[in-house]
Every structure is written in structure tokens, then in C-alpha cells.
């Protein structure tokens, strides 16, 4: 077991934990967090793969930096949509 393989497996485990949460949790906020965890799992797999190379693979690092920014913008949009949906429901109820 090398460090790379343990981190690879951890990334996969995080992805699956997130996927499980996305499929089973009822609360919208938790589902959005679950998607974030899935993203972190993917990033961890990518970075672990980058660490196989002697000086760490800059191409994969650049990909993950980009991915981090995309994931926060997607989270912001998802949270805003969640707020809009909830407001819509409240309007219907009243």
C-alpha cells in the first residue's frame, strides 16, 4: 500500500459517501453539500494520480484549481435555486 493508493481509495470513498448522501438525504442543503463532497472525492483522485509523477503533474493540478472555482460557482447557483424553490412553496402555501 503506497500513499498514492491510499489517497486514491480515500477519494473514491469520499465520492461514494457523497453519492450515497445525494441519493438518500431529504434536505436540499445536505444534497448540495453531498455534491460538494463528490467533487472533493474526484479532486482527491486526480491529485493522487498527479502525485505518481516525480515532481507532481502540473496539468492535473491546474485542472483541479479550475474545478474548485467551478464547483463554488455551481454551489452558489444551486443554493440560490434552492432558495427560490422554497420561496415558491411558501407563496403557494399562503
Amino acid at each position: 500500500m503506497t500513499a498514492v493508493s491510499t489517497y486514491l481509495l480515500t477519494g473514491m470513498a469520499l465520492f461514494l459517501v457523497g453519492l450515497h448522501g445525494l441519493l438518500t438525504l431529504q434536505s436540499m442543503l445536505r444534497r448540495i453539500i453531498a455534491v460538494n463532497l463528490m467533487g472533493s472525492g474526484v479532486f482527491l483522485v486526480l491529485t493522487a494520480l498527479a502525485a505518481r509523477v516525480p515532481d507532481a503533474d502540473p496539468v492535473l493540478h491546474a485542472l483541479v484549481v479550475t474545478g474548485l472555482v467551478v464547483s463554488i460557482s455551481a454551489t452558489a447557483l444551486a443554493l440560490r435555486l434552492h432558495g427560490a424553490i422554497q420561496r415558491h412553496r411558501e407563496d403557494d402555501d399562503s
Partner: protein
Amino acid sequence: MAIAEIILDATLIGLLLVMGLGTLHTRRTGASIALFAGFGMILALVWARLGAPDLALAEAAIGAGLTSALLLRAASITEEEEISIPARRQWLSWLFVAVVFVWLALHVIRLSTPVDSPSLPNLVAGHLADSGVDHPVTAVLLNFRAWDTLLELLVLLLALLGFRQVARRNQHPYDADSHPAPWPLLKAWSRSLAPLLVVTGMYLLWRGSESAGGAFQAGAVLAAAFVLLRLSGQLPVVHWSRWTVRLAALVGPALFLTVAGASALAGEGWLDYPDGMSTPLILLIEAAATVSIAVTLAFLVSGEEEDIAE
């Protein structure tokens, strides 16, 4: 592996998994978000451990800092429903996850053999001298794979536009009236922290060409400074209708597109910088991108919407 490394890895991985599970399955929303912030910090340590300081910086600022602020804000204006899953079904679903994990692990574990002479990183290292910057990650982001970064800035812009489209119209959660006045201590602290954050952001941008750091990290830190000042009521509402704000959000992608178009029409091809112009062009694009990323992230996190017509 040395014994110290094993202890470090085991601690980091254990914390990562426990906190990840905790964020999803703890009962209270506040605890969940606090655990998410902690999860982000541990992940930043993992990036540092895996030899990725750029990622560690970006994760600490974006993943742990700004995303948690976003989640806290969302949790404060939407009420949460309780989570309840029948225990039997939960047990079954975890069993399913375990089976999938083992099945995937058998395939993925084969990927973990070290690569001695990788083709892509060798290409990057070989052409680093021509790229105009000294840091390989920055070279990839703004020269070799500049396309990705350009499109990514456009994704950020799209997210901002979508965010504006579903803006809140009949609620004002951040009004001065409905929001309690910030405590003096918070005001004083944010007043002394914000300049430090601005200095740090500028430093990250400036260092980006030769070591870890760059436009994304700098933009995120600047956005954090803005959000801090907004939360403590030190800055007035930033109106999206102001042309300066729109210009700031657009300048990064616009400049990048201009360079891309100019290099396609007059030069070798899309984003193929002319000889000797790489360094100034990259620095210019990075500076403009920092401004746009900072403004966009600040808008996304602080959720300015007060200026929208009723």
C-alpha cells in the same frame, strides 16, 4: 513508507472520512456546516501533503472559506426539514455502497503504480522556458491550456448571470432593518483584517508566476475580504447596476477573449502568444482575471440583491 508518514496519512484520511460523513449525517444544520469548513481545511492539508501547494491555497480560500460562508448564508434564510430515513433501508444502502467501493477499488488500485517518465508532465517541463512564467501550474493554466481557463472564466460569468436571474425579489434578508447591527468587535477586527487580506491577495497574484499562487487564489482572498467587510456593515451595498461593477466582473473574460481573438487573427492561432510577449500578456490576463474572479465570487457569496426592482 516511514512510520511518521503512515501516522500522518492515517490521521488525515481518518479525519477526512469522519468529517465528510459528519457533514452529511449529523442532525443539526449548523454543526453540518461547521464540519464542512473543517473538512475543507483538512483537505487543504491533504493537498499540501500530496505536493500541491496551489491547491492547498485555493482549497483553504474557496473550499473551506467561501463555500462555508455561502452555506451558512443559505442556511440562515431557509429553514431546514428534519432528516429521517428508515434504519433498515439505510443499512441496505450502505451495504450497496460498500460493494460498489470494493468493485471500483479492484480496478482503480491498478492506477497507483508510479510513473517514471510521464509524457504530459515532461512536455510541460520541456516547454516551461518558452511559456513566459516559471511556475508549471501557472504555465499550464495561462499558456498551454489557456483555453480551459478562458472557458472556466466564462463558466464563472454564466454562474453569476444565472444567479442574478433567480434573484430574490420580495425579500430583503440583508436589509439593515432585518439584520442585527454588527458588534463593535467584529467591525474593528474586520477593519484590521481586510487590508491584510488585500495585501495577501496581491502577494499571491504577484508570486503566481514563479511559485504557488495565482489569479484564482488571489481573487478568492480578495473576495473574502469583501465579504467580511460587507458582513460587518463596513461597505455600502454594491449595486450591480453600477457600470464600474459590471466592468470589473467582465474585464477578465473580455481581455482574455480579446487576446484570443487578436492572436487568432494576427498571430499564429488561438491563444498562441507571439514570441517574447508571453510574460506581459500572461501577467495582464492574470491581473484582469483576478479582478473579475474577486468581484464574481464576492457577488456569489454575499448575494447582493437589494438593488433589484420590486
